[in-house]
């Protein structure tokens, strides 16, 4: 029996590589973003039954299973002109609202907070002072000095064991960490609490999807019937479990996540003027009504914002063949019409063209092709997608709660509206929208209960289930605002089979390379102008990249040519010594 172990469990989630050119003062002059794994789901989907596409699309990524499933079934419903029943639409929207809270809280505590919170520093904290801070910012019950002393002892035990595990390889002690030890301790406590919290918030998916992980989805509705008297349907007992789960979500968002953001942010106001990048934003919108093409029903509007101008927001049409295009000039793909051309996703092509360099290599050829991500553009313009885009869209549209929250966060931090266009603005927007969507989840649930009470319990429409009811040719667009930004699936159906299928995922927008005109993508633009305190420990780069919440698994696919292991990810930064 083999006992040799190097990297025992290959986990293929996608690698992001950033190459940055620095000036003599360690300021970033140019940045290049590369996805070092190829994507191929489009190839796998060709020729398949469109009703099955979601089951493949949901496997593109372990964290984004739900969003790909929804974008896929919405694309097929759009192509086949299917209207899902109102109760099913509410159930779907509830799953999406829940997903935001789960994803954003985990992103903040598990990944992003450690960019701002020095874990090891919390050992120096006075738990009594941490307790005082906690009690001053919210009514969260875990707030006694003894509680925080216990957390501190746990962290001390981890450090003493020499097995830092999750906390290994952080840049602890880096001069860019600015929080007092007491606030660090507060955040570490909530980091640990968030891990427990997540087990209580996934119940909506388990119930509506029939199982979790990998809930079921269906073109035409949701797979879970509603019958208050049945053991196998959505019944009174399950509604009560959901009720409790929603309470858990809103409590944590209101009493932990938002207050923590406001406790951490004041130490990092320099990041309210750093990391903006493009100033252009796009959303496809979210929480549709029963008429999926009626964009006026969306809570998050479908919006295009250019040059920070919130006064002249327009609505982008994803069916516009010349505005919505992807470019491969600097990407490892080949277009039949030439690599300078752009293609709408319905006409999209996925033909690999890896031009090297052969690994191992020192630097990518950034003048040529350097990434497995395509470059999506709107009318040739690069845009940012994600929480900041959504909050700006809701803010510009005058959504009351959003305006209130944004203004109150800015006032608390003493920051102007322009501060939103930044790394910190992105991180704050994520917390703000989590609050908006968690509250919306409660509203959706009340609507669902009212519908059930009125006897409207239909959850599936089978009128167009059989392929013989379909047109011989059809094209569809399916969207969702994934937690990390606008996600679109474009499908072309011919004679009952998928002829073409293209995903344009949030991280493809944000981590995109230069396009045919040489315009940088959002990450590339956002990093320019940031100065690194220690180039061999580029914490500042992580802060801005993490503020976008990258999902490389969706954007790209398959192992890199190195076939390398986790250590490669740990050193995935390549910093040139000079410009």
């Amino acid at each position, binding site marked *: 029996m083999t*006992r040799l172990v190097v990297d*025992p469990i290959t*986990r293929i*989630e996608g690698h992001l590589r950033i190459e940055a050119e620095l000036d003599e003062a360690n300021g970033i002059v140019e940045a290049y973003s590369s996805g070092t794994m190829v994507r191929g789901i489009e190839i796998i989907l060709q020729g398949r039954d469109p009703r099955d596409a979601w089951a493949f699309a949901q496997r593109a990524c372990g964290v984004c299973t739900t969003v790909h499933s929804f974008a896929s079934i919405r694309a097929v419903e759009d192509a086949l002109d299917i209207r899902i029943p109102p109760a099913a639409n509410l159930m779907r929207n509830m799953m999406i609202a829940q997903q935001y809270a789960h994803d954003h809280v985990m992103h903040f505590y598990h990944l992003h907070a450690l960019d701002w919170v020095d874990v090891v520093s919390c050992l120096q904290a006075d738990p009594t002072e941490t307790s005082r801070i906690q009690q001053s910012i919210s009514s969260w019950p875990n707030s006694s000095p003894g509680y925080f002393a*216990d957390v501190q002892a746990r962290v001390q035990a981890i450090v003493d064991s020499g097995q830092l595990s999750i906390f290994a390889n952080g840049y602890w002690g880096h001069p860019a960490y600015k929080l007092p030890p007491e606030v660090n301790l507060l955040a570490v406590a909530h980091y640990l609490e968030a891990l427990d919290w997540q087990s209580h918030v996934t119940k909506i998916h388990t119930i509506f999807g029939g199982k979790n992980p990998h809930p079921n989805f269906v073109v035409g509705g949701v797979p879970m019937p509603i019958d208050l008297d049945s053991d196998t349907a959505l019944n009174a007992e399950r509604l009560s479990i959901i009720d409790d789960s929603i309470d858990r979500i809103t409590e944590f968002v209101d009493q932990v996540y938002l207050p923590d953001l406001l406790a951490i942010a004041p130490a990092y106001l320099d990041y309210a003027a750093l990391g903006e990048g493009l100033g252009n934003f796009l959303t496809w919108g979210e929480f549709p009504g029963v008429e999926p093409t009626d964009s006026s029903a969306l809570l998050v509007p479908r919006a295009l914002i250019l040059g920070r101008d919130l006064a002249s927001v327009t609505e982008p049409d994803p069916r516009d063949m010349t505005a919505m295009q992807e470019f491969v000039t600097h990407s490892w793909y080949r277009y039949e019409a030439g690599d300078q051309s752009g293609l709408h996703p319905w006409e999209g092509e996925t033909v690999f063209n890896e031009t090297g360099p052969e690994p191992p290599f020192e630097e990518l050829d950034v003048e040529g092709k350097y990434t497995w991500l395509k470059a999506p553009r709107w009318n040739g313009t690069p845009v940012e997608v994600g929480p900041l885009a959504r909050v700006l869209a809701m803010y510009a549209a005058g959504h009351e709660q959003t305006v209130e929250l944004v203004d109150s966060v800015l006032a608390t931090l003493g920051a102007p509206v322009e501060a939103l266009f930044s790394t910190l603005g992105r991180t704050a927007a994520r917390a703000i929208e989590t609050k908006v969507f968690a509250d919306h989840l409660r509203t959706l649930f009340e609507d669902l209960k009212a519908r059930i009470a009125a006897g409207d319990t239909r959850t599936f429409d089978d009128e167009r289930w059989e392929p013989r009811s379909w047109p011989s040719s059809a094209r569809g667009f399916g969207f969702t605002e994934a937690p990390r930004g606008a996600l679109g699936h474009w499908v072309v159906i011919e004679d009952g089979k998928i002829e073409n299928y293209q995903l344009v995922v949030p991280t493809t927008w944000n981590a995109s390379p230069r396009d045919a005109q040489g315009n940088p993508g959002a990450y590339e633009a956002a990093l320019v102008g940031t100065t690194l305190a220690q180039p061999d420990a580029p914490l500042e780069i992580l802060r801005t990249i993490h503020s976008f919440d*990258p999902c490389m698994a969706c954007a790209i696919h398959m192992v890199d040519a190195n*076939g390398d292991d986790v250590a490669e990810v740990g050193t995935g930064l390549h910093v040139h010594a000079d410009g």
Partner: protein
Amino acid sequence: MAEPADRGDRRVVLGLGNLLNRDEGLGVHALRALGQRLGADPGVELVDGGVLGLNLLPLVESCSHLLVLDAVDAGRPPGTVIELGRDRIPMLRGVTFSEHQVTFQEVLGLASIRGRLPGTVHLIGAQPADISVGVEVSPAVRGAIPPIVERALEFLDRWDATVPTSGDAS
């Protein structure tokens, strides 16, 4: 911190891997093959964990017995069946760009430092040959699935012979 859930006697076989990358998905394929052998009343929970990463933490921490099926890169010839005991599975964490780069080792590492690693953890897998884009596994890995299933069945028999144990005390 909340008290650990009462894990009682929860026995789980967890298949891991990405079905869109051929042999990378062998853990899920092996899980399905095991499910067919066990039939309608498997007497153990069979969970398709895909590549869910951190989302698997609550499940892992709630188990008393955990058998993981997964692709294992040990530099061996393709299809070689590989087993790792509880203390042989490294638990790592590096600086990453994305929450989505959370590996299953990290999930085990988190459970471990939280004092909630299941009392019994075992991994059975095989060396992959081809993890390119596609849904079909390579012949070498297809051939490894029956012996993986046999070893898993032996392991489950051994569980049945033991009285329920609890995991680490927290």
